[in-house]
């Protein structure tokens, strides 16, 4: 879980164009500056490409924060092993 969070850091920094951005499990659209709908789409695309996973729209709509995203990613990465 910690490893995924570490791998997500440069993705978030790139998408939000903030080199010093540090996300945590509690980070969300309400706490990260610039996390609007288009940034969210770009973020999901970047994560799907980096981790070779795919999200369903329903899964994405249910996510409240980065922690829930990481939990779902763990499941998907585990299934692809």
């Amino acid at each position, binding site marked *: 879980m910690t490893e995924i969070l570490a791998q997500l850091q440069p993705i978030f920094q790139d998408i939000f164009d903030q080199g010093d951005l540090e996300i945590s499990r509690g980070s969300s659209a309400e706490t990260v500056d610039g996390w609007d709908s*288009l940034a969210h*789409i*770009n973020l*999901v*695309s970047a994560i*799907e*490409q980096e981790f070779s996973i*795919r*999200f*369903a*729209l329903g*899964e*994405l709509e249910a996510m409240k924060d980065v922690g829930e995203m990481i939990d779902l990613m763990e499941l998907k990465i585990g299934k692809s092993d």
Partner: protein
Amino acid sequence: MNNYGWQDLELGLKHEFQAEITEKMMQNFLQNSGDNNPLHVDAAYAETRGFPNKVVYGLLTASFYSTLVGVHLPGQNCLLHGIDVSFLKPVFVGDALTISGEITFLNEAYRQAHISAQITSGQGVSVSKARIKVGVLE
């Protein structure tokens, strides 16, 4: 104009078209943008900078990326999300360009397609490359 829907798109789908840069295009771009940098409007000045003629605006050539996605791939259902362009070689009035693009990624959940695109001049020399993100409306 093409009219690809989301279900019609697949990885590797390609399109290309040709265009030629004209003096009229340069004048229109100058009028629209107000960019009167002498490199683009003064051939004599451009020669002092080592170019054989005035250099075509990079964003004029990049405007063909708009045509690529808005008219060809996917066409009518396109909503441009973002574009990352690199300019590799200078372009001059009269150059015949080929603009091409290929779908490299599809985000199913949000219907976002990524397109790897390039513009080539003359004998296939790449003058520009772009990574384009588009939403597909239907």
